């Protein structure tokens, strides 16, 4: 069974190469089918691996495919480490990817660059798999950057659109800020444990006397390395303030948004911290930092979604907000809980995006929700799927989101520290916000009266679009019932966080009676009143709320901050290039020396008049002077 692992990335790579370089041999449709088929086979393989891992208790696959670098003092391999944690991740990634592949055959059928697209998404999945199965930090980083690279290519897929190529540059550069810290974090871990290998690092955790390591600015070594790694994750998983790239990434084709947001890119950060959890449990400062960042992302970015009118951007902001939940859970060392939310979120977020894609297709690439409405009757399958997705995201009881979100909030509440209490309240408010914006979307898109033209021509998309929606709907509803698996999930060879859990029925009872349900009900009420029944609340009309909404609509000016930073960088560069490099070094020093010599030569040349007697004078006077000097020396 273990040997099957090699084939998963290999198949994806082959798929990417076939679709990318087969312009002559395959037409669009068949290359899409081949690609989907290959991903599907890897999904099957990953399922086999999953069952194999779960069939035996202590089973961990660990080996190297080949040595990346192997010299004395440094051994980096390209290999795999598959435990229960990563095998689930593998299945999640591949199942979402398969569905997205399938969906894309329909969605992209009219695109000129159909094959390029398939090549990219296969490469995207490949990079993510490389990241997930990696057994060391370098391979993780390769996958990590690979994901960033393909997202760069995919966001800029429509390379003629200025907004798209701006967005992809922005995405890559923001990710690079994270990567810079990430690589520093990796290097710090390496410097302390003399290895990049997870196994060695975690085994050395006991041996290495961590307190002996250096401290910087009053924080311990581990604090810093974990913090740097987390900053890397902040960029990938779109946490404040490095979230700015994610809403803009909606410039890419919609299936990509599903892939980026649900399964691959943004989950990489969560996965990485989960993977390195043995390190993170050792640091208090960084986990508190993570908790605060996560909670504030969940709340503050979620709020923006209420005022957003682009259907994809609303869902994008909701992703950031949900990622905030996951990160917050990481901040209280509840890695499995976070991972559980990642897993449920993957399905319903993919579902939401694919539904949005279906809607956008039906409306001829209109993404503005103000021009939508009343689609309930026209797009029944999409409507039901979207409804399921929305119910999941707001945590409606018995859907998957309910399990994961409630578990997360409960664990947060039981953490019993001031900071986690604050975070709990923020997350609860975020749940309210989530309910409001999700239902707003639902109401506006499907219930409100249609305001555009050509309502009669709108019709449901073909089977190839709707089948993925149905698959994902089923998965979204039922994936939450595996809660037990996640609560017992060990990460690597370390024990789980002690979670008091008494069976699923008790959990449901408890969950329904929790404050989260209150938030749900309240959110439903507000949302229905405002967006369905068009009732204006007077309380929302006063200045205070208006002022707040202005701040929120400005998206807290993060974009402006980054733009001004980049402008500063550009101006510095111009200044340095013009003044310092060309002016000082090149102008003054390098060209200055010959210029000085030249001007001195010109001076002397002008002094030589050409008159014979002037030369005679200079000879005589020189003679006098030389004689004088000799005399002075002799006498």
């Amino acid at each position, binding site marked *: 069974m273990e040997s099957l692992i090699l084939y998963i990335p290999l198949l994806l790579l082959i798929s990417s190469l076939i679709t990318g370089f087969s312009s002559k041999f395959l037409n669009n449709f068949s290359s899409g089918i081949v690609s989907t088929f290959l991903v599907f086979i890897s999904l099957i393989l990953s399922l086999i691996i999953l069952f194999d891992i779960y069939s035996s208790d202590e089973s961990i696959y660990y080996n190297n495919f080949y040595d990346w670098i192997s010299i004395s003092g440094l051994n980096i391999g390209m290999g795999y480490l598959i435990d229960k944690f990563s095998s689930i991740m593998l299945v999640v990634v591949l199942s979402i990817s398969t569905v997205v592949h399938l969906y894309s055959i329909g969605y992209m059928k009219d695109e000129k660059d159909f094959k390029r697209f398939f090549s990219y998404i296969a490469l995207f999945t490949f990079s993510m798999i490389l990241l997930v199965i990696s057994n060391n930090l370098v391979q993780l980083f390769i996958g990590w950057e690979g994901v960033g690279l393909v997202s760069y290519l995919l966001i800029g897929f429509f390379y003629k659109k200025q907004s798209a190529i701006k967005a992809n540059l922005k995405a890559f550069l923001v990710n690079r800020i994270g990567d810079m810290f990430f690589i520093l974090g990796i290097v710090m871990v390496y410097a302390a444990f003399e290895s990049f290998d997870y196994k060695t690092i975690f085994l050395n955790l006991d041996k290495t006397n961590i307190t002996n390591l250096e401290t910087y600015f009053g924080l311990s070594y581990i604090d810093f390395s974990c913090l740097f790694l987390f900053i890397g994750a902040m960029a990938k998983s779109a946490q404040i303030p490095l979230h700015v790239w994610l809403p803009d990434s909606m410039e890419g084709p919609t299936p990509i948004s599903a892939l980026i947001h649900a399964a691959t890119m943004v989950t990489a950060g969560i996965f990485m911290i989960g993977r390195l959890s043995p390190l993170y449990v050792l640091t208090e400062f960084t986990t508190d930092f993570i908790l605060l960042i996560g909670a504030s992302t969940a709340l503050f970015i979620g709020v923006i979604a209420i005022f957003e009118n682009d259907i994809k951007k609303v869902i994008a902001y909701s992703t950031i907000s949900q990622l905030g939940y996951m990160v917050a859970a990481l901040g209280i060392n509840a890695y499995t809980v976070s991972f559980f939310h990642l897993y449920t979120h993957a399905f319903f977020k993919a579902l939401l995006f694919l539904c949005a894609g279906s809607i956008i297709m039906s409306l001829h690439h209109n993404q503005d929700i103000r021009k939508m409405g009343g689609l309930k009757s026209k797009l029944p399958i999409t409507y039901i799927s979207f409804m399921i997705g929305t119910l999941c995201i707001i945590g409606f009881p018995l859907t998957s989101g309910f399990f994961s979100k409630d578990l997360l909030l409960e664990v947060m509440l039981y953490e019993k520290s001031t900071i986690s209490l604050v975070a709990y309240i923020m997350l609860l408010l975020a749940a309210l916000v989530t309910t409001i914006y999700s239902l707003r979307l639902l109401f506006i898109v499907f219930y409100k009266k249609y305001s555009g033209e050509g309502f009669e021509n709108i019709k449901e998309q073909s089977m190839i679009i709707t089948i993925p929606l149905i698959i994902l709907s089923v998965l979204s509803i039922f994936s939450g019932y595996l809660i037990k698996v996640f609560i017992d999930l060990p990460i690597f060879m370390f024990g789980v966080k002690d979670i008091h859990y008494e069976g699923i029925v008790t959990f449901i009872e408890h969950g329904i009676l929790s404050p989260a349900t209150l938030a749900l009900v309240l959110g439903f009420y507000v949302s229905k009143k405002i967006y369905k029944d068009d009732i204006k609340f007077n309380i929302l009309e006063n200045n205070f709320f208006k002022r707040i909404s202005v701040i929120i609509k400005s998206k807290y000016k993060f974009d402006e901050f980054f733009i001004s930073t980049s402008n500063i960088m550009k101006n510095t560069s111009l200044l340095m290039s013009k003044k310092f490099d060309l002016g000082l070094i090149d102008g003054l020093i390098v060209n200055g020396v010959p210029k000085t010599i030249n001007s001195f030569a010109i001076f*002397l040349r002008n002094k*030589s008049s050409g008159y014979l*007697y002037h*030369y005679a*004078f200079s000879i005589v006077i020189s003679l006098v002077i030389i004689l004088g000097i000799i005399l002075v020396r002799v006498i």
Partner: protein
Amino acid sequence: MITMSHYLTFSALLFCISIAGIFINRKNILLLLMSIELMLLSVNTNFIVFSHYSNDITGQVFVFFILAVAAAESAIGLAIIVSLFRKRNSIEINLINKLKG
């Protein structure tokens, strides 16, 4: 009593006068040449003085050579002056500044 210093002082004086001659005569290239002849004369005198006092004939041999070379020099110098005069109808050296940079 005439000592060596007398002779040397004399030739130094002659030398200085010819230097002054170079400075003063900026018009006439012939006078310049004559000043140079004077200078050579003073140098030759010095040679002979030293030769005489050291009782070494080599100094005089040198004077012989100097005389020969000086004769050649003045011959060529005069030839140049003649051809210069033909070309420019003047030998005023302040009109000749082709060497100006």
